[in-house]
């Protein structure tokens, strides 16, 4: 993406425009965008607790970019933890649910459940508890929001 400062505003384009009109004329077939004031747009990476502000031109690096700002949260730290842990448990619950039928079948039929299945399920519960402890140890809103849940 590229952008240009024009008539007091910053206009963004996915590519150099085929036609561009400014105070100097109507330009066709622009190949050197910077000669006309077009510069790349750099998107900073953000964490979940952050957001992008308004686009501006970074004179030092000659790019358009965005300031990274902290998001504000109306919930308390405890409420954010509750939400995050709920999300965590939902993830592990979905994972455990995939083998629930095996447990139910074996209980119903009196079969011995494969130890690998039992171990895997136990490991999931242990991991979930470890994450829950880690989340509960966080002390700031940003650290709770930014806590990365596993990709199961």
């Amino acid at each position: 993406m590229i952008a240009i400062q024009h008539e007091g505003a910053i206009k963004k384009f996915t590519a150099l425009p085929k036609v561009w009109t400014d105070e100097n004329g109507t330009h066709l077939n622009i190949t050197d965008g910077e000669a006309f004031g077009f510069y790349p747009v750099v998107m900073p990476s953000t964490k979940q607790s952050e957001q992008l502000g308004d686009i501006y031109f970074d004179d030092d690096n000659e790019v358009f970019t965005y300031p990274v700002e902290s998001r504000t949260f109306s919930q308390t730290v405890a409420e954010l933890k509750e939400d995050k842990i709920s999300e965590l448990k939902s993830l592990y619950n979905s994972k455990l649910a995939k083998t629930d039928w095996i447990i139910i079948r074996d209980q119903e039929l009196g079969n011995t459940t494969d130890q690998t299945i039992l171990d895997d399920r136990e490991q999931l519960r242990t991991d979930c508890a470890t994450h829950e402890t880690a989340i509960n140890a966080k002390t700031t809103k940003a650290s709770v929001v930014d806590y990365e849940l596993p990709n199961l």
Partner: protein
Amino acid sequence: MALTKVTSAVLNDDAVSYDKLGNEFTTAAALSASDVDFSTAQVFTKTLTANDTLTFSNVSTGMVKDLVVTGDFTLTLPASVKVISGTYDGTVSNLIQIVSTNGATEQWASISQEAV
């Protein structure tokens, strides 16, 4: 000098042949400089060898001129030109047709290339 009113006695209806038209309607001129003088030719040709800025002169409402331009460089037309269709392709020959709808204040341009 007394003016002669153009009547059928002087000039018959349907009597203005192509040959009688002025050069500004019938000739093609290669642009060596950057000014497109609308009073001198109908078709203007130019091969860009670098980014170039064209200016227009003697533009009157209703005039229609054709620019045939080649060259993979940036071509800048006056800001009074509004492109209504087409894009310039530097790899082929481009026909840029200019219509003045308000003298030197406003012209409309359509850009096209040979069909392939």
